[in-house]
């Protein structure tokens, strides 16, 4: 199965990279971008065939390594 993991900064956590990207967009003439938040996208190929078990395993991976839950949220999507 494939797992797609999106990791995003929690609301209120300063995103320095997002701000730099916003600044670069403005310098290219892209107006009207109020805010930019940068996250991470991680794809996993996993042997588990039961979607529910796969999801809970990947969520455990998020809690233990992939995300720092002090500052980040994670969302897991499982597909074949």
């Amino acid at each position, binding site marked *: 199965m494939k797992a797609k993991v999106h990791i995003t900064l929690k609301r209120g*956590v*300063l995103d*320095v*990279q997002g*701000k*730099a990207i916003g600044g670069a967009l403005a310098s290219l003439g892209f107006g009207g971008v109020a805010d930019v938040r940068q996250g*991470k996208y991680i794809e996993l190929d996993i042997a588990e065939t039961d979607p529910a078990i796969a999801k809970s395993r990947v969520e455990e991976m998020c809690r*233990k*390594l*992939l995300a*720092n839950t*002090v*500052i980040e949220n994670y969302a897991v999507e499982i597909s074949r």
Partner: protein
Amino acid sequence: MKAAVVLFPGSNRERDMAVALERATGEPPAIVWHGDTTLPKVDLIVLPGGFSYGDYLRSGAIAARAPIMRSVVEAAERGVAVLGVCNGFQILTEAGLLPGVLLPNAHGKFACKNVALRVETSQTVFTGGYEAGQTISVPIAHHDGNYFADDETLARLEGEGRVAFRYVGGNPNGSIRDIAGIYNETKTVLGLMPHPEDATDPSQGGTDGLGLFTGLANALS
């Protein structure tokens, strides 16, 4: 005092740390590889600065899950003193030995300069060489030194006297409440962004950092 310095792939301040420890104790520390699973019997474990694993995923994130870290956590729980400097501080937060997280500097730039720090308390194994309220000058060299924790954690840190050092005369990275270093509950684990090991000899431009190492040597010998 016997000390061990843990070496991760990408550590780069382990030698500075070893030299500073030897200056204070007369004895070089053991250097322990991150892939080892056991530590020698020591009074102090140091996680040095650098860019372990190239800061992949998050600063300190991969190093915090290295095999040796299980032994470091166990030793810390037994009360063995643990010092994490710069990347070592980041690793301690990622390993759950210290609360909060080190975000990228608020101004988005690498910060490399001397800063003034206030020593908040002298009543720990780390700070017996200083007076409470004393200001010392030590260098910083980091990109991710912007300490952040939620309000509840900050209230607990302040209430329990667990802020070890604060930046004074200017905050170099946006760190919340000017925090430069914090302790765990028992004040036997210290993480700080500045590099006291790089202010232990006049040739480094100052010796204000030496007190941390002589204080440790006095407390732990």
